[in-house]
């Protein structure tokens, strides 16, 4: 179901000869966001997912994802072709494509040029490039960010407990009312892989 990249982002690029020039810059940009290169699962542009998507490794989305995305200790990149209609929880989030929903990151959220983001952004560090399109709110009060992320000193991971508009906690949101054809998708790597 998922395309798994090989050892580095250059390999990701070489997997698709049709990838355009801006996509080719993806690897270096992503490395800056995550602070490391290397393995990342990829949801390809022809893939559509409705439901909860959870995992413990870095992920790039080029397809359509609706529901909830939880990669609490990992980096998520929503590629140029990616369309995400979900609340997203990750260690860091970089957006080149489209998102509709709230974005929570324990470290950083970067919205790149030509990205389209509608929803709220909660992260200690936020950057929005000129030319990106954003509608929503950005929490820049460190205390409120801390509270929203429910950051634990023990593991430094994002544990979202932010209240949403209905007064429910984000943990409640993590188990949303599922559509009839919901598919819970785990992206944990097979044993033996990082």
């Amino acid at each position, binding site marked *: 179901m998922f395309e798994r990249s090989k050892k580095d982002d250059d390999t990701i690029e070489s997997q698709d000869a049709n990838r355009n020039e801006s996509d080719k810059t993806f690897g270096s940009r992503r490395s800056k966001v995550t602070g490391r290169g290397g393995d990342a699962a990829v949801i390809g542009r022809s893939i559509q997912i409705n439901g909860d998507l959870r995992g413990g490794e870095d992920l790039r989305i080029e397809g359509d994802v609706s529901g909830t995305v939880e990669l609490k200790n990992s980096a998520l990149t929503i590629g140029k072709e990616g369309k995400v209609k979900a609340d997203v929880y990750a260690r860091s989030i970089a957006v080149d494509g489209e998102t509709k929903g709230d974005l929570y990151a324990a470290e950083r959220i970067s*919205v790149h040029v030509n990205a389209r983001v*509608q929803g*709220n952004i909660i992260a200690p560090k*936020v*950057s*929005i*490039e*000129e030319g*990106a*399109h*954003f*509608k*929503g*709110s*950005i*929490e*820049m*009060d*460190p*205390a*409120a960010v801390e509270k929203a992320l429910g950051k634990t000193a023990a593991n430094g991971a994002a544990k979202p407990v932010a209240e949403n*508009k209905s*007064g429910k906690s984000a943990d409640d949101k993590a188990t949303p009312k599922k559509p009839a054809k919901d598919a819970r998708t785990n992206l944990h790597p097979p044993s033996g892989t990082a």
Partner: protein
Amino acid sequence: MISSLRRANPRTLSDSPAAFHAPLFQELLTGLDATRRHVILDLGAASTAMLALLGRSRCRVEIADLAHFGGIDHLNRAEHGPALAHAAESLLPNALPDDAIDLVFCWDLPNYLTLDALSALMAAIGRRARPGALAHALIFYADRDMKEHPGRFVPTADGELIDRSGPGAVTAAPRYSPEVLGKSMGRFVIDRARLLGNGMQEFLFRLESCGDASNH
């Protein structure tokens, strides 16, 4: 001499935007109390420079980006009455309970709205703002023309403003007078105004409480 020529020909301004001093804007930013939380509504587009400035204080920034997300046309075309009020509400980012707006950056967007649309928008904002909240706006005053689309104003390192929207076609500016604006900003009343070097007028509006408004 050069500045007066530029003022006489808005196309020149459009082609080579110059940073301009906006004292009320600067005063707002420097006056932000770093010890308390602020809720700031920006009707324009998000910019890294603006976020960097606002990030010096504890704040939540709500960005509506009316120009890009079709808000201007939507408002101007909405039928007067409940439909217009609903259209105005729908353009604002979702609010958090008990998080009333303290400060609004309108930039030059009021110039692109009909007076009815402007009234509806500011009324919607007023319902979500605390009494005493401030709204900042830039109104085309000296020039007869303005760019066809709203600007993308960004603060410079020196605290000035520059329009990064680039050159574009021009259209007639409505040149709203202070009197007209005073009647079209909902419960926001004119606090102060300054004529700027680029021919725009900078306004600071203050939200009256419901009690204040009924006294007028």
